[in-house]
């Protein structure tokens, strides 16, 4: 538990998985401490080691090694542990398609897929994604061939300003994959975490219904 995450591995490499679990655990603890404050951390949770607690990378002094895959591209990084997945994508990897709407997990604009699951990237520290596969809006199309959901959004005009759109698309794809797009009402329920101030909701519902009903692979 006291090892540093190795971090320099291949996300697709099996040997990374144990490192990943270790890293996940350790980083979870770091995050808990950063949030709760040391005085609230139960001592025995760390094996009763006060010395260990002092080694935790608090503040801004330490860089943490991290390896992850984004849209199929592997990245080996050394990052400030305070960096959220959202800020990593936008500010360091130049992937600005993932949007910052609220930074509090309340609007869904930052939705990405982590190992196939929809995740709010603003609520996730980048270092928690060690060894994981991230898909962002930039990775949804197959080269120049748009994803069926992207085509359907254009056809049904499922957006106006376009700012919430990447998050809507990532959620919409996940919604169909999760089997929660069975009816308009079900879609409304399972998409309600993605806000749209322009009010494109009815058009997006129609887009998702069409993709679902066409049985296209998403």
């Amino acid at each position, binding site marked *: 538990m006291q090892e540093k995450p190795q971090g320099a591995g291949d996300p697709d490499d099996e040997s990374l998985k144990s490192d990943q679990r270790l890293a996940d655990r350790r980083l979870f603890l770091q995050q808990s401490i950063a949030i709760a404050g040391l005085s609230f951390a139960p001592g025995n949770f760390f094996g009763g080691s006060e010395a260990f607690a002092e080694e935790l990378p608090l*503040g*801004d*002094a330490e860089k943490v090694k991290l390896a992850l895959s984004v849209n199929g591209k592997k990245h080996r990084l050394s990052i*400030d542990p*305070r*960096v959220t997945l959202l*800020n990593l994508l*936008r*500010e360091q990897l130049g992937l*600005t*398609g*993932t*949007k*910052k*709407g*609220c*930074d*509090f997990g*309340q*609007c869904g*604009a930052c939705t990405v897929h982590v190992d196939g699951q929809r995740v709010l990237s603003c609520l996730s520290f980048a270092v928690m994604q060690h060894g994981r596969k991230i898909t*962002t*809006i*930039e990775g*949804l*199309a197959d080269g120049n061939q*748009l994803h069926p959901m*992207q085509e359907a*959004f*254009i*056809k*049904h*005009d499922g*957006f*106006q*300003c*376009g*700012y*919430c*759109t*990447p998050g809507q*698309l990532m959620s919409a794809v996940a919604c169909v994959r999760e089997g929660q797009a069975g009816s*308009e009402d079900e*879609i*409304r*329920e399972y*998409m*309600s975490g*993605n*806000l749209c*101030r*322009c*009010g*494109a*909701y*009815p*058009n*997006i*519902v*129609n887009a998702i219904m069409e993709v679902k009903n066409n049985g296209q692979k998403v």
Partner: protein
Amino acid sequence: MVQKDLQTEPESLDRVDGRPKVTGTATYSAEYAVGNLAHSVLITSTIAKGRIKNINAKAAEESPGVLAVISHLNSPGVPGYPPAKQPAEPAPVGTAFRVFYDELIYFNGQPVAMVVAETLEQANHAASLITIGYEIATHQTDFEANLSKSAVALSVQRSKNSPFQDYGRGNPEAFDAAEVKIEATYTIPTQHHQPMEPHAIIAVWEGEDKLTVYDKNQGVKSAQGNLAQAFKLARENVKVNAQFIGGAFGSGIRVWPHTVAAVLAAKKLKRPVKLVLGRELMFTSVGYRPYTVQKIAIGASKNGILTAMNHEGTGQTSAYEEHLERTILATRAMYACPNVFTKYRLLNLDVNTPTWMRGPGDATGMFALESALDEMAFALHIDPLEFRLQNHADTDPERNLPWSAKSLKECYELGAEKFGWKNRLPAPRSMQKDGMLVGYGMASSLYGFHRHPSKARAVFSRKGSVVVQSATMDIGPGTGTAMTRIASKILGVSPGKIRFDLGDSSLPDAPGQNGSSTIPSVGSAVHVACEALKTKLLKLASEIPGLNLQPDQMTIKNGRIFNLTDASGGISLSDVLKYHNLEQVEVTEESKSGAERDQYSMYSFGCHFIEVHVSPLTGEVRVKRVVTCADVGKIINYKTARSQSIGGIAGGIGMALMEASVMDHRFGRYITNDFVSYHIPVYADVPQIDVIYVDKPDVHVNPIGSKGLGEIAIVGVAAAIANAVFHATGKRVRDLPITVEKLI
């Protein structure tokens, strides 16, 4: 449902910027790849009034990565700020808030310092280390408690021709003498735009006297002028880029203090600075729809003819600046009534200045007026739609002018038919479905026509492509798509070969995107520019010997010029340029209003029919069905227009049922400061919406016969919902939003 709508207008264009928007390549203000970028965060006041005693920034300044902590103590200063104390003059009475100017605090959430660091994480951490000492003064932020202090705005007192002067026509005693009277007070709380994209800017000084900003705003030209004035720069030395704007709804009409703060920081550090407002700051930094109280008194004859309408409105503004809106103006023009009196007052409070929010003033005023009309119809035992038809204004009763065009009766008819209004049982609580109380409500809508001088450049190049340019904006409605459609129809070139450029201050002059003025203004400019380009191309073609092209026979279609009598002949546009040895043909044209403004009264009209279901147990209101119908002249592109109308309804649902910015007056601070506490409509709140357009050109307003759509889409929606709720429950809610505790 959608399929049917699409078939109504098979030629409708998909959004021309659809692909970048669905692939994440559309670049918004905070997303430009600028080298050597520093990141910043604002620190805002935690008191509503008083002065800063001290700022302890030592720990922050020593924190890793920090480049500067900027406040009034060390700001390089904004040379264009007026030196006077606030509130100062002249108009708009007062002075826009001056960032980092002095130690005075005017509202809670006022920017007082800024941390700039190498990374956002470093800036955020350093900001947490700053402590600020305040001397607290007593503040007044409670609108209701201070209402008696409202007064005629100073700017109105000084302007005899202000539309906000007390107004009257006819007999002031008419209300007292009316056979049937209703009198009520309507309240709309402060509501916030909250576009999904937070306001953001990247400021880059390209030299001592040259500034480039990537800024979220609704008008690159006005932002350019404003920043040039603030920093005493030549206008052409300020470049404002805003190609993609993630919604605004009015919040981007002005250049706000945070924009100036980022420019100041970039100047001080001599390197590019990015500032993105956190969602909490979006409640105190970029304006809001002001808290407004309205009193309406309506008199009518027993047979349902309006005899008197008195409308008083009071809106909130800041302590340092006046903001006025059209709140009471619609009442003068909406219905045929001989005796109408209006008053408008302002209340200064220790808050930030409000601003225009979708349907400014009219969305507010028409909530009160159209609710009151419904109350009167109920009192008279007349169907609400019938009552409106009986009092239809055939000419503008305020200006005594003919309407440029008005198809409101057709809107009523089309909307009522589609909705099934005839199935409405008149008595409240008389309709039920699945254990829910069912209510049918309707309201009228209007919005004044705005057209500003605009220029457009149109360039045809030998490759066969067209570029049209104007410094207009797209905050979401699909400006580029509509302009492409206009150009395509005139030039006979397929939309795929046309590119429309906007959002760049170096392009030909255009107004900002507000007041539903883009299509009327810029659409007209694109129209005249493309007509001029077409004329030029036809002339060039007619000069080519052997083609026998006749000036009165020539037309352009599919990129070819030919005689109407011989579609197989003619010449391609590219070959016309080749023959003349030209790489491109270019025109720039301006379009603006003329004398027609004094000959006609120009408005858009419309109506909304809404069905709500209300739980008799919990009071929960669900909007189940909406039919909205608008007469906005010619529809340029049905698909994007329809989306804009749907968006207006969604905004109206928020305004009516959930949006309220709540302040804790002990501190003068909003307790609703995120999307968990400030509710905007989600998927489950917005049903499928039927959109109908009369789609007849208004030949008097401009060359394209088209009026704007953005505002009229929301005006009246809140009243239609409130009226439906009354019909469902028998409870008249006059204080928005209509939340459950008001119904149980």
